[in-house]
């Protein structure tokens, strides 16, 4: 019976109930869509970070990333082909990208600059690392003597596509070595440090320059990033001398900080939305409850306790909030599968130099969270409104003008 009264009370004043439902629907929809938008954005950031440079993570010899070594090549990975085969056999690993990073001088014949080179498997990486920002030319691909330079480095050396460039380096044995390359592409990461000093050449060329058959690290491409924890465990058990680090740590500045920033922003926006919902419900519930003061007086005169009246009001508030929240979620979901289904363009985000397409990604957990929070807010708003009436004595409530 209590539920019947609560349900029917929703249609006592249709206009007021509509305002209540609309307030809650707007709150739930705002929370749901904002969360979905953030998730979509973060997934785009993640995709960008994974496919621009880092892969899903990276494998080095244990402790390599934490130390500054006088001879880093002593801690590089030996027998790379065997290690690559083992990594490829792990569940969840789809691609392995061996890399070798080294210091070098890059010269255009008249001018030389200190730089950081990376030897990569150009053919393999060009397919996986598709979000790297190539501003001129193309990525390294299979070009054996190709070199791709950071925009700042190319600009400083006044290098254009097709021009020859000399890379000079010290081998792992301490002797000077050098080779000539053709500029096949220029990239732009948005990070001045990278753009002013980084370049890529083919891995065999880098090994020849460094006079080593070792590699420094291996980037991993996974079937899904959700597989990372399992892959990390497998690496630890099958290759105990190596350690795997996820891209979130490697790319803390751009990706993880963006995640933390957007999550913090969401928490604040969510609080504001909930506050607005509580206020909205409080406002409409106050009018409704004051109108029904005599009814509550009659109920108490017939034995209902204050707690039971509060329950009735809370149930009414929760039902209204639940219906409003579901309506709000439906609106967001329908919008997302109709006119937002192709996503929308966003201006360049951290670490990205071009605008990108993002989607509102909605999950059941977000819907559940939005419904729960708005129902709680609706309930709270109703209860706050109820206190004034419950402070009255029964006879006062009965005397109250309706």
């Amino acid at each position: 019976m209590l539920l019947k009264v609560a349900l029917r009370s929703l249609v006592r004043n249709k206009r007021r109930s509509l305002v209540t439902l609309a307030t809650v629907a707007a709150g739930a929809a705002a929370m749901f869509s904002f969360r979905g938008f953030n998730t979509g954005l973060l997934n785009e950031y993640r995709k960008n970070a994974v496919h621009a440079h880092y892969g899903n993570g990276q494998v080095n010899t244990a402790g390599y990333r934490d130390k500054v070594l006088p001879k880093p090549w002593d801690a590089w990975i030996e027998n790379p082909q065997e290690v690559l085969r083992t990594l490829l056999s792990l569940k969840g690993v789809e691609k392995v990208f061996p890399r070798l990073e080294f210091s070098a001088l890059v010269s255009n014949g008249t001018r030389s600059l200190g730089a950081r080179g990376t030897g990569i498997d150009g053919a393999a990486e060009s397919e996986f690392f598709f979000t790297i920002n190539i501003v001129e030319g193309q990525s390294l691909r299979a070009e054996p003597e190709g070199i791709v330079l950071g925009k700042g480095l190319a600009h400083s050396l006044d290098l254009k596509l097709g021009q020859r460039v000399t890379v000079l380096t010290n081998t792992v044995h301490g002797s000077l070595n050098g080779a000539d390359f053709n500029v096949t592409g220029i990239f732009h990461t948005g990070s001045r440090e990278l753009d002013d000093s980084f370049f890529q050449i083919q891995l065999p060329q880098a090994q020849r320059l460094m006079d080593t058959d070792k590699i420094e690290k291996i980037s991993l491409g996974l079937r899904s990033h959700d597989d990372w924890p399992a892959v990390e465990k497998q690496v630890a058990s099958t290759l105990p001398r190596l350690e795997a680090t996820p891209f979130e740590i490697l790319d803390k500045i751009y990706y993880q900080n963006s995640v933390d920033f957007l999550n913090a922003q969401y928490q604040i926006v969510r609080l504001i939305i909930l506050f607005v919902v509580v206020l909205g419900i409080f406002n409409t519930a106050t009018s409704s409850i004051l109108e029904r003061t005599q009814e509550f007086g009659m109920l108490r005169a017939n034995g209902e306790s204050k707690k039971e009246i509060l329950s009735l009001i809370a149930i009414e508030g929760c039902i209204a909030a639940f219906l409003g929240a579901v309506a709000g979620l439906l609106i967001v979901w329908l919008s997302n599968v109709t006119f937002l289904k192709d996503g929308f363009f966003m201006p360049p985000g951290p670490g990205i130099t071009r605008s990108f397409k993002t989607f509102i990604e909605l999950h059941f957990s977000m819907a559940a969270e939005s419904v729960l929070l708005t129902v709680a807010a609706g309930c709270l708003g109703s209860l706050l409104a109820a206190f004034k009436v419950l402070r009255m004595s029964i006879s006062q409530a009965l005397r109250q003008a309706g």
Partner: protein
Amino acid sequence: MGDAHVFEGNRLSLHYRLGDVDVPALSDIDFQIEAGKFTCLAGPSGSGKSTLLNLLGLIEPMQKGNLLYFGTPVAALSEKQMNHIRRHEIGFVFQNFYLIDVLTAEENVEYFLSRQGIPAAERTKAAGRALEWVGLSDHRGKRPQQMSGGQRQRVAIARALAKRPKVILADEPTANLDSKTGLSVLELLRKACSEQGHSVIMASHDLQAIGLADRVIRLRDGRRAEDV
């Protein structure tokens, strides 16, 4: 009902606060109300009869004096005990009916039976019987706004009777009704007393009501009229 008196009041006083002014509503009232009788609290408007009825119904907080309910001091009752008494032992009939407007006549009667914990089938029967008793069998599916004032008051009486209370308290039940409808409502209350054995206490200034009562307690300016 072990005690012959439903209520016994001793030097009951109550003041209302209107802004900065204390307004005495009851002053040192003594009375005894017998069980199974139709008692009328009579007096002009402002005489304190509704205030006294509210005290008897445990819906007005006690201020001064002593009130016994079947021999138990009301001042000693906890909130929970008072809720229990109001739910199970007292039936109210108000001047303004106070029906729940989103429920039908039958559901209005059933509501408090459900709150008493009576199973659905049993309470539907009880509600049907009560509505039949007040002559509203054909109106059980109607909502209050679809009924006349007299019909609404009959639903209120059915609601009070269905609870099978020890005492029915009626506050000016005919005030909003024409004299013919009022008389039929009074006759129902009279019948509830004489046929069903309920103690009925009614606050009214209606001469018809006074005429039907077994006993009349007259009030004026918050005192027993005899004491003025």
